[in-house]
């Protein structure tokens, strides 16, 4: 830091200038004794976002940042409540016909778009038309392609008819509704992306209205005074600030420059334990709806042998792995379903760490001899393979390293390779050109695993990357998606969970925890299985603690 002295005069000059300039910093250092302070309107909430958003109509965007912003501007007919159950939003009620093919929605009659026009059944029909229009570039088309017919019975009733019973029918209507009166011409021309609503003037029905988007810098939203649910949200402004560096986000938190941000495991565990931080921020922890897994290529004859897969699963000490990689801030995964959700089978046992058993299983599979370096050999060939994962993901790299070390004890020679994301997908995953992978999977809200484990989904474009095929699992998955009755589906998925845990086409490692920090001046945050954002319009800052007056 010797060099810093050279710049000292410059810095001091700037600091003097700054003293008079009203940049808000500090100020909220008051103790957090006002637990029951009355809800009040006002203040700004600044959320740090690692990524720039890509569009303002989330229906045609794939990135989570766009969906996070979109969720405050738009509504679906249904939403998910704190316990991840489907709950009414723009619809007040719905009924399924007994054969699960007809779905009727009753809509609220008190909802207005941000421009004042009433929201009606025509907008619902239009949203369907927009999603299935051949030129709409959306990745969410399938749910709407399953619909045979949709009609507005009256201004506040919509009838939907599916070709076949469609398990995801209800949840698919959590898709954001789009305003017909503004977007119809763009959809018809196939130019939805170029609509001004996608860039400068999105119009939804949600709790916040759009104010501005400066690409790569920030998105600003303001409270919608006419929000149909309980009226205007308390927080007057929400600012999503794009800060690409995790290190900078953390410094902004320390300097109280942002009000909400995600912490890394290291920050949560080791760097935010000091009193000043605990006083300024409340930290939350809940399971992210995702799973990190280790996938075998079952086309490889070595991995096609179930005993070899079991041996490898027994050789990985999952607890140790979680402690190292995410500092224990996650949940052991036994299958693809999140613990506590209805598809999760709680009777499935975690795979125990047992090196002796692993060696025995490998010996049964014919891997008995060792070469001069200590690696297991069969038919003159050592057991060597390569684990691939994407470059730049430190978590997955660490997993691969730990697995490598564990398997070395077993006598397997494992190489690691980090490949850039687009290349990994195109050259390795799609072509099934790999031995083993470490990847993560977002689980979504519906537990249907058809495209991940059904034997028909093993073509290059499909997502059954392990090339897993099991007739019973096929049958169960088919039944699970052909009914709208949750209890029936649960029976199928509990069995799928059992089979996958026994056959291990992939080793499910863990469900990572989300670790958000929220400024302690904000009240009304109620952590739940679905996270903290579900009741964002009810968050408030007591008047004495409000920090930003603008807006």
């Amino acid at each position, binding site marked *: 830091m010797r060099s810093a002295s050279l*710049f000292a005069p410059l810095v001091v000059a700037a600091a003097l200038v700054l003293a008079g300039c009203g940049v808000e910093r500090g100020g909220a250092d008051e103790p957090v004794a006002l637990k029951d302070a009355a809800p009040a309107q006002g203040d700004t909430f600044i959320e740090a976002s690692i990524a720039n958003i890509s569009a303002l109509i989330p229906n045609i965007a794939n990135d989570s940042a766009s969906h996070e912003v979109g969720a405050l501007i738009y509504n679906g007919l249904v939403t998910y409540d704190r316990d991840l159950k489907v709950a009414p939003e723009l619809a007040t009620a719905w009924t399924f016909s007994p054969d699960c093919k007809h779905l009727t929605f009753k809509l609220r009659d008190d909802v207005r778009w941000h421009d004042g026009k009433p929201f009606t059944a025509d907008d619902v029909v239009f949203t369907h038309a927009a999603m299935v229009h051949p030129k709409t570039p959306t990745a969410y088309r399938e749910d709407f392609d399953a619909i045979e017919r949709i009609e507005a019975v009256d201004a506040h009733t919509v009838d939907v008819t599916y070709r076949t019973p469609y398990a995801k029918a209800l949840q698919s209507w959590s898709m954001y509704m789009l305003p017909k009166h503004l977007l119809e011409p763009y959809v018809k021309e196939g130019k939805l992306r*170029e609509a001004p609503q996608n860039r400068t003037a999105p119009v939804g029905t949600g709790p916040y209205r759009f104010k501005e988007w400066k690409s790569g810098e920030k998105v600003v939203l303001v409270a919608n005074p006419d929000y149909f649910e309980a009226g205007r949200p308390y927080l007057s402004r929400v600012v999503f600030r794009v800060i690409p560096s995790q*290190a900078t986000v953390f410094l902004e938190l320390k*300097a109280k420059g942002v009000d909400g941000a995600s912490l890394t495991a290291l920050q949560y565990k080791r760097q935010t334990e000091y009193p000043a931080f605990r006083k300024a921020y409340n930290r939350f922890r809940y399971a992210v709806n995702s799973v990190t897994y280790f996938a075998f290529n079952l086309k490889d004859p070595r991995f096609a042998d179930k005993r070899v897969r079991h041996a490898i699963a027994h050789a990985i000490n999952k607890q140790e792995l979680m402690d190292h990689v995410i500092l224990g801030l996650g949940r052991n995964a036994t299958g693809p379903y999140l613990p506590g959700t209805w598809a999760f089978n709680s009777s499935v046992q975690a795979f125990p760490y047992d090196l002796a058993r692993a060696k025995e299983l490998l010996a049964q599979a014919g891997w008995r001899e060792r070469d001069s370096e200590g690696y297991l050999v069969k038919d003159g060939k050592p057991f060597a393979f390569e684990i691939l994962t994407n470059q730049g993901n430190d978590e997955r790299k660490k997993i691969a390293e730990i697995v490598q070390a564990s398997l070395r004890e077993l006598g397997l020679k494992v190489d690691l390779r980090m490949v850039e994301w687009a290349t990994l997908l195109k050259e390795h995953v799609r072509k099934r050109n790999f031995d083993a992978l470490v990847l993560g999977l977002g689980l979504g809200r519906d537990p249907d695993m058809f*495209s991940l484990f059904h034997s028909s989904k093993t073509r290059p474009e499909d997502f059954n990357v392990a090339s897993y095929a099991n007739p019973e699992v096929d049958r169960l998955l088919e039944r699970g998606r052909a009914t709208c009755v949750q209890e029936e589906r649960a029976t199928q998925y509990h069995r799928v969970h059992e089979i996958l845990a026994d056959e291990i086409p992939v080793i499910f490692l863990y469900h990572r925890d989300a670790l958000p920090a929220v400024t302690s001046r904000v009240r009304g945050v109620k952590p739940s299985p679905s996270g903290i954002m579900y009741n964002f319009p009810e968050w408030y800052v007591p008047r004495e603690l409000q920090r930003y007056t603008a807006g």
Partner: protein
Amino acid sequence: MLTYALRRIFFAIPLLLGITFLSFAIIHLAPGEPTDLIQGDPRLEASAQARQLLREIYGLDQPIHVQYWKWLTRIVRLDFGRSFSPDGRPVLAKIGERLPVTLLLNIVELLIIIALAIPIGVLSATRQYSMFDKVTTVFVFVGFATPDFWLALLLLILFGVQLGWLPISGLRSLNWEYLSFWKQQTDFLAHLLLPVVVATFGGLAGFSRYMRQSMLEVVRQEYIQSARAKGLAERVVIGKHALRNAMLPIVTILGLSLPGLIGGSVIVESIFAIPGMGQLMVQAVFERDYPVIMGNLVIVAVLTLVANLIADLAYGMVDPRIRVGRRR
């Protein structure tokens, strides 16, 4: 001179064509297409269909030479096309909103570097092996060896977190539009200060070394001895006779750094959360946003050619020997 310039411009056209063709080919050869990244929800079977649709919208289903021809016929009309990202905005608009910040940062940085590097270089050359020379040599090597991001984080911790004197990230405070005019300017400057310091620190090292080296060579020349022998003041010998000649290589280096002005530093931009060209370009590469990548490359290529031309012309002006040599 004029015919020379015209000839250079004429020959630049096939060169530019070659550059764009090679860039186009290399970018498309890189594995992975923009549509490969449209994962959405992996349980949506339609994602394969959505991908196919997007390939058609983007024209990626056509053979590469057709794609290049289409791109070329558009670009000669200065139509840079639309970004592949879901906002579908024109490439020029995307570059246009990122360029001013990057230009500003880089120009300020370059000016400071020149203002500091030339005196440092001259002083350490004329007082070779003096205390000043040794100290600046150490300083320069520290500058070379210090990673940007590390220095940036240290400065942020000190001035942003510990002392709270300077803002940590971004370009403006959130209440910027509510500030008075002068406060807006000081706020903006406060946000730029650390990024400029960090960016300058590394560049300063290189430039002052070039200057020192160039000066050392010049002061050993015989005409400097004769200037001293004439009894001229040392200030005049160095400041007038030596400096002018020592500046020649610096002019070339400066010319070559012109195209760099529009390329942002990804590391500095990411750490200080500055929405500049570096981030735009890196994001475009990761997303395989071909129109943005190509638009950027074309601009850089044109600027490089122009800068080369300017440097050569300026060289002729600064150095009479070259001009005379060509007339013969």
